């Protein structure tokens, strides 16, 4: 496996580089720590709106000029908000990369947040919030997180609410930028046809003279997990989406590898336990799965399926019984081996392209684990025992929050 070269610039920015000459392109990711973590319910949607505005004007260029520059190179440049980081992604043919990097640095350092663009993006975000309501899965998942994490940012939708987005102003965006978009809060992760020395030099040229104006960054508390409760959202649908959510550990926990194995065993792929038991043997669902997002402060394990409205109770019982089973009895040797092969194999398959490599290393660095966690994670998964899987399952599978959309 490639190992990224890590360099820390004098201003605190971490630069990770993986040289990969297989294809003539370079991909880079700028991670700005915290993401939506610092949002309050009153400002829900702030970081998403910042991400929409970053590419829409700088002190030197208008939104259209930025788009023209990127598209004339046939490159891509985009920004998005996540629960633990704000991300700028760029990709270009290798010879265009220096120009694209320079433009991206300008976007990062001196966005102008023009009023007309704020009005447009606010309006379009509200449309996006409305169209989220067209997807039963999205409705259910949002509600599940709200049931578990309450008013903490992890319980809020990334896009925000219509009424909070409508009130976000230019000064809110500027205040966020001033406090969080700072060199010591930044990880730049690069993969592709470029040497480490060359990449570090290019980054230093465009970001090296950037100094923090606000060196103190806040600490964000993990959410207080709420007493699990249930919600039913009635729609006139063909199918009901049935979801269970259990509070689960953050990525920095020693139990994280075992939780990833539990989620893999239950929900990953066509040989997974939920798929075989509830779809293949009982024909209850087309879509049935489980997942466990990697998060910095706290997470949740979600088990869900789409099923006929008349099967909702059976589906809930089936999902819960499979989770409980993991707490009651250990996995046998074959099951554990299969779960490890799947988890590690798909983990490796998820790092095929340059963008995927830049994402993986930059994310771990941004979460405070370091890019080395990529290999450390593999080692930790390999040594997880059936007993520790069961112990972690017992801690996790207590009482779930339940959401039914149908």
């Amino acid at each position, binding site marked *: 496996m490639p190992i990224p070269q890590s360099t820390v610039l004098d201003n605190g920015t971490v630069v990770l580089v993986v040289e990969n000459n297989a294809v003539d392109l370079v991909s880079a990711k700028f991670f700005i720590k915290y993401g939506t973590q610092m949002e309050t319910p009153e400002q829900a949607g702030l970081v998403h709106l910042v991400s929409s505005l970053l590419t829409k004007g700088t002190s030197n260029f208008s939104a259209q000029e930025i788009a023209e520059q990127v*598209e004339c190179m046939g490159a891509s440049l985009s920004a998005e908000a996540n629960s633990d980081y704000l991300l700028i992604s760029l*990709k270009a043919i290798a010879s265009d990369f220096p120009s694209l990097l320079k433009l991206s640095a300008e976007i990062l350092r001196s966005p102008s947040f023009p009023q007309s663009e704020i009005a447009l993006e606010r309006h379009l975000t509200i449309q996006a919030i409305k169209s989220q309501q067209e997807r039963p899965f999205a409705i259910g998942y949002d509600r599940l997180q709200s049931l578990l994490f309450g008013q903490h940012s992890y319980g809020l939708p990334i896009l925000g609410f219509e009424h909070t987005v409508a009130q976000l102003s230019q000064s809110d965006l500027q205040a966020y930028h001033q406090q969080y978009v700072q060199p010591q809060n930044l990880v730049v992760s690069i993969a592709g046809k470029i040497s480490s020395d060359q990449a570090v030099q290019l980054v230093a040229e465009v970001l090296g003279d950037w100094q923090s104006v606000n060196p103190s960054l806040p600490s964000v508390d993990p959410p207080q997990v709420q007493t699990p409760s249930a919600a039913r959202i009635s729609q006139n649908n063909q199918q009901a989406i049935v979801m269970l959510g259990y509070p689960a550990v953050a990525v920095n926990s020693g139990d994280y590898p075992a939780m990833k194995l539990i989620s893999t065993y239950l929900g990953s792929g066509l040989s997974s336990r939920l798929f075989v038991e509830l779809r293949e043997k009982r024909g209850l669902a087309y*879509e049935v799965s489980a997942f466990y997002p990697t998060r910095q402060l706290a997470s949740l394990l979600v088990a869900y399926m789409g099923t006929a409205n008349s099967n909702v109770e059976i589906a809930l019982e089936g999902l819960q019984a499979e989770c409980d089973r993991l707490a009651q009895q250990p996995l046998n040797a074959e099951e554990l081996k*299969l779960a490890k092969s799947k988890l590690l194999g798909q983990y*490796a*398959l998820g790092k*095929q392209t340059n963008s995927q490599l830049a994402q993986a290393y930059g994310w771990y660095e941004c979460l405070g684990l370091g890019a080395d966690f990529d290999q450390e994670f593999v080692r930790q998964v390999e040594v997880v025992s059936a007993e520790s899987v069961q112990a972690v399952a017992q801690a996790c599978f207590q009482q779930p929050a339940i959401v039914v959309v149908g």
Partner: protein
Amino acid sequence: MLSSPSVPSHLPSVISSVTTTPQQSGTCLEVFQGGLKLVCQPMLTAVVCVDIWIPSGSAVEQAGNLGIAHLLEHMIFRGTAFDFLIESQGGTSSAATSLDYTHFTFIVPAQGLWTTLPYLANMLLQPKWTEADFQQEKAVVLEEIAQCYDDPDWVAYQLLQQTAYGDHAYGRSVLGTTADVQRITLEQLCQFHALHYRPEQMTIAITGDVEIGRVRTLVQESFVSRTGGLHLPQPAIAPQSTDRRTAHLNHLHQSRLLIAWLGVEASAWQDGLGLDLVATLLTGGRSSRLVRQLREELGWVYDIDCGFALQRQPGLFTISACLENAYLEPVEHHVLTQIEALAQGQITELELAKAKRSLCNSFVFGMESPQTLASFLGYHTMLGCDQLCANWSELYCQTIQELTISDVQRLTAQYLASDRSIVVTCLPH
């Protein structure tokens, strides 16, 4: 059924996603006696991806059997240990059915090819099913159909296909009807299988860490060709005149506008790439015409996208927008005006060059992944675009680079005439 091959015991952490010595040998495209096609591209990676394409999608179904092609795709996995075989190696697999095809794809560490491909060949050519398996899988497929009806974009697209193709097979849902799926018998499924799942019909694409000579032998041994070629006549598509439909959909929060035209068939893939270029001019990025004008300057659409689907018979060139009711008419008018402008040649050289570069680069970016490349090569080889596939790494971009303003003018005038547009609008209840 072949007895389950023993599962390799290595840990998949041996999969390395990157190697650093650039070298790439050419593409191999070979037609075996009987008609089986193999397209193979060695790549710098430690994995191998296989994608098998069978040209019997929903378009070959008969009335009363609608949904049988998709049901068969599901049944192929029944009673097998394929998922376990793939996933225990750390690989993944999937399958899909559309109008013109069903395809089966998997990705595994390179050495896994030698057990996995013969196993899949046997599943495809000699399945063994029980009635109980069949009934259980039907229940799964019926849930899948129900789930699709809760997706307004899926429903809107079905309506567009019906409107554009009328009684032709392309006008029907790939998933068939609930009534037909309930009615299909295991015997009918076996007959459909015997008719269509024949090596001489198949196209196999293999990309990744492979050596062409050994792959050729493996394919030959695994897919022993049966005799006789099968020619499947398909009815011609009646040219449509302009038509429009409006539907009110449950739990829609934003309106949808879809404007479509019949484009070219796969044998004219050069014009297909030309239509891809027209699509890029219209919605390829924030500085493209329709995105810039309708999203960025006017704020009339929340999202607008455009694409051409190359199929065996003429596929659709579709512009789709997500917007508020009040803007339906002005947006439609604006789109048609811009297309008329392209037909008049109102394009700058700069605009054309930018669209060409975007299109070529996104092709290059996409082909970084063995799965995307296998899918591209398998699909286009199945459709008979052999020339494109044999020299894909040069010909795709070369074809696009050679297009001129007058080509854009010709393609727009020829295929995107406003008196042949199909318009579907979906409104919230």
